[in-house]
C-alpha cells in the first residue's frame, strides 16, 4: 500500500459521517440517472398541475367577479322618500368607495316635446355611464362635456344621447329639437342613439351639467358597481349608508344573487376537477416512486448486509424522498405558476397573480407523497432477509 493511498484512507476515516450519507444520496441519483429523472419528472408535473389548479381556484373568483361587474350596478342609492340627493352626494360616495367601484349619478324628469308629448329626460355623467353600463349599445357618445364650448354654440344645441324608441318621436331626421320642462326650453342636438332593450330606449340622456342648469333638479339616484366578494360589497354598502345619511342604500338583489349562484357553482366544479386532477397526479408520483424504491432492493440489501441499522436505512430513504419531493415541488411550482398565468391570459385576458401562499401547501403535499412512496416499500422489504434479495429471490 503506497504512502498516498494510506493518506487517502486516513482522511476518509477522519471525515464526518454525514459526508458518506450525502455521497450515497448523490450517487444514488447520479448512477441511476434515468429512473431518478423519471421520478423527478413525475414529481415536477404533479406539483405543477397542483400549483396551477390551486392558484386558479383562489384567483378565479376575483376574475369572474370582474366579469360580473359588467352587469352594472349592484348597489343603488336613492333619496329617501323620492327626494333628490344633496348636491355633494357624489363626491361623498366617491370618497367612501375609495377606488373600490364606480358610481354614476342619474337625474330624471318628465319633459315635454314640442307637440306636448311627455318624455323622460335623464341627466348623466357620460364618462361614468360608459364605464358602468357597458352593455349600452351607443352609436356615438357625446363629446366629453365642455361647458364653455356648449354654451358658446347654443345655436347647435346641447349634445344628447337619444333612445332608439324615442328617436322617431323627437328627431326623425336626426335634426336638433327642443324640450320644455316647467316652461324652460332646452335645445338639443342628438349626438348618437342608445339601445339597451329596456327603459333606456325611451329616454333622452343629456349631460348632468346641462340637466341641472335646465331643470334645477339634482340627481335622485346614484348607481354603484362595487367590486369584490359579497362580504366586501356588504361592507361598501354599510360605509355608503353612513356616509350618505340622506339616501336609502339598496342592493340590486337580481345581480347579486345571480352572481353568487354562478360563482358558487363554478368554484364547486373547479374544486371537484382540481381534486380529481391532483389525486391522479399524486397517484402517478406514488406509483413511479414506489417502483423506483422497490427496484433498489439490492442497494437496500447490501447496506443491510454491511451492517446498516434500520434507523439509518429509513433515514436514508426518507432523506432521499424528501430531497426529491422538495426539488420537484420547487421546480413544479414555477411551472405551475407559468401555466396559471397562461390560462389567465388566454381565458380572462388578465394575468393570474402568483399566490406564494400556495407554495408551502405544495411543498408539504409533495414531501408527504414522496415519503409515503418511500416508506411503504421499505417497510415491506424490511421483513425480508438481505440474503434472499441478493440472491434475486
Amino acid at each position, binding site marked *: 500500500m503506497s504512502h498516498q493511498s494510506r493518506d487517502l484512507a486516513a482522511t476518509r476515516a477522519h471525515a464526518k459521517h454525514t459526508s458518506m450519507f450525502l455521497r450515497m444520496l448523490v450517487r444514488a441519483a447520479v448512477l441511476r440517472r434515468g429512473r431518478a429523472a423519471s421520478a423527478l419528472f413525475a414529481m415536477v408535473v404533479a406539483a405543477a398541475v397542483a400549483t396551477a389548479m390551486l392558484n386558479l381556484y383562489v384567483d378565479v373568483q376575483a376574475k369572474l367577479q370582474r366579469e360580473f361587474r359588467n352587469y352594472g350596478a349592484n348597489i343603488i342609492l336613492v333619496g329617501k322618500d323620492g327626494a333628490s340627493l344633496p348636491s355633494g352626494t357624489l363626491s361623498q360616495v366617491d370618497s367612501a368607495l375609495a377606488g373600490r367601484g364606480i358610481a354614476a349619478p342619474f337625474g330624471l324628469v*318628465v319633459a315635454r316635446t314640442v307637440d306636448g308629448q311627455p318624455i*323622460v329626460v335623464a341627466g348623466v355623467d357620460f364618462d361614468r355611464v360608459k364605464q358602468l353600463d357597458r352593455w349600452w349599445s351607443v352609436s356615438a357618445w357625446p363629446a366629453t362635456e365642455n361647458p364653455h364650448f356648449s354654451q358658446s354654440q347654443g345655436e347647435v344645441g346641447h349634445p344628447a344621447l337619444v333612445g332608439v324608441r324615442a328617436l322617431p*318621436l323627437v328627431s326623425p331626421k336626426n335634426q336638433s329639437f327642443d324640450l320644455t320642462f316647467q316652461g324652460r326650453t332646452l335645445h338639443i342636438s342628438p349626438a348618437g342613439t342608445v339601445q339597451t332593450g*329596456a327603459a333606456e330606449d325611451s329616454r333622452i340622456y343629456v349631460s348632468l351639467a346641462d340637466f341641472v342648469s335646465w331643470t334645477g333638479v339634482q340627481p335622485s339616484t346614484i348607481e354603484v358597481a362595487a367590486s369584490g366578494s359579497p362580504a366586501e360589497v356588504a361592507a361598501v354598502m354599510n360605509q355608503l349608508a353612513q356616509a350618505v345619511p340622506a339616501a336609502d342604500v339598496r342592493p340590486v338583489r337580481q345581480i347579486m344573487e345571480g352572481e353568487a349562484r*354562478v360563482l358558487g357553482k*363554478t368554484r*364547486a366544479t373547479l374544486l371537484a376537477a382540481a381534486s380529481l386532477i391532483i389525486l*391522479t*397526479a399524486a397517484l402517478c408520483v406514488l406509483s413511479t416512486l414506489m417502483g423506483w424504491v422497490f427496484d433498489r432492493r439490492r442497494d437496500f440489501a447490501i447496506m443491510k448486509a454491511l451492517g446498516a441499522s434500520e434507523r439509518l436505512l429509513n433515514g436514508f430513504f426518507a432523506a432521499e424522498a424528501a430531497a426529491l419531493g422538495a426539488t420537484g415541488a420547487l421546480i413544479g411550482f414555477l411551472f405551475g405558476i407559468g401555466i396559471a398565468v397562461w390560462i389567465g391570459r388566454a381565458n380572462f385576458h388578465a394575468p393570474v397573480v402568483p399566490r406564494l401562499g400556495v407554495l408551502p401547501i405544495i411543498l408539504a403535499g409533495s414531501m408527504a407523497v414522496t415519503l409515503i412512496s418511500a416508506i411503504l416499500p421499505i417497510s415491506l422489504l424490511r421483513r425480508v432477509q438481505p440474503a434472499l434479495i441478493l440472491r434475486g429471490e
Partner: protein
Amino acid sequence: MFVRLVYESFRRQKRRKVLAGAAITLGVTVATAMIAVATDIGDKINRELRTIGANLVVTPQEDSLDVEIGGVNLKPPTDGAFLNEADLPKIKGTFWHNNIVGFAPILPVSAAIRHEGKAQDVTLTGTYFAKKISYGNEDFVTGAKSLYPWWKVSGAWPDDNSQDVLIGERLAVKLNQKPGDTITLSGRQIHVSGILSTGGPEDDEVVAPLSMAQQILGKPDAVKRVYVSALTKPEDAFARRDPKSLSGAIYDRWYCTPYPQAIALQLTEAISHSHAEQIRQVAQNEGAVLTRIEGLIFLITLAALFASGLAVSAAMATAIFERRAEVGLMKALGAGKLAVASVFFAEAALMALIGGAVGFGIGSALARQIGHSIFNSQISISPVLLPVILAIAVIVTFAGSAMAIRRAVSLDPVFALRGEL
C-alpha cells in the same frame, strides 16, 4: 403460443396487472368525468345565469313611448297598444321552444288603495306567478316564481286564478300590512297573501294575478309586455348580421342558432303585432361570463387529460421495467424484437380495453354525482363516447409503454438474466 404467453402473463402476475390496470382505470375515470363535465358545463352555467332574470322582452309593435321613472308609469295605463294574452302559449311553439325556460307577462295598471280613510294611488302589476299553460299536448308551468328567483315572499304566493295579491315590502310598511290582511283596492276587498321583497321597484307596488289587472283596466286579454328567459348562445359577429341581408342556407343557419337575435325574431313571428328584443344588460353579459367559464373548464379538462395520460404511462413503464428478466429469457430462447414487443403491446391493449371500460363506467357515475351535487341536475355522458374513450385509452397506454418496451427489447439477454441492469 402467443395467446398462451399473454394469457399466462395475466394469470400468473395478477398483482402487477391489477396495479397497472388500476392506473389505467383511474386515468380513464378522470378523463371521462372531466369530458362529461366539460361538455355539459355550458348548458349548466347557462341555466344558472337564467337566475338573473329575463333576457328578452316582447312589446307591442305600435307601442307609444314609456314614460316611466323608477317603475312608476306616468302615462295613463290605457294609453298605447297591448299584446294579446291568448298569443302567449305560442311562445312554446317556436323553433327554440326547448330553450325557453320561462316567461311572464306584465300589465301595470294604477289602482287606488283606501288606507285610514284616504285613497292612495299605487301601481298594480298583473303577472303570472306559477301559471299552468298548455300548448298542443304539452303542459308547462311558468311565471314570476321561476323567472325571478330573487323575489322573496313572506307568506304565500297567490294562486293565478285567485283574487289574492302580493304587496311590496316598502308599500307594506307604509300601509302597515302583513300577510293575511285584507285591503280595499279600487273598490274591492282583496286578500293579501304575502309580502314581496325584490330590491327593485316592485317593493313599492302591488303584484296581482294578471286577470285582476285586466279587470281593473277593463281590457280582458291585454298584456303590456312579456319577459322571456331563454337559453342562448353567446353572440358573435355572425349573430349581429342583419337577417334581412342573409340569403338561403346562411339565413337558415342564423335562424336555427339560438342567438338572442334569432330567438327574438321567432318571438316576434309567434306573437302577432309584437316586437321582441334582447335586454342587453342580461343578454350581452351572460355571453361573456359563459365564454369565460367554458374556456376555463376546457383548459382544465386538457390538464386532466394530460395528468391521466401521464399516470397511465408511468404505471406502464414501471410494469414493463420490472419484467426485464422475462424479456431476457424470451430473447435467450430465440424470440425476436418484434415477437417480444408484440407480446407487450397485446398485453397493453388488453389492459387498456378492460381498464378503459371500467373507467368509463366509474367516470360516468362520477360525472353524474358531480352534476347531482353541484347543479342538482343530470350530467349524462352519451354511450357514443365509449369507443372514443377506449381508443384514447389504448393510444395513451401504447404511447406510455412504447419507450419502456423499446428499452426492454434492446436489452442484452445475458445482462438481463444476471439481473445487472
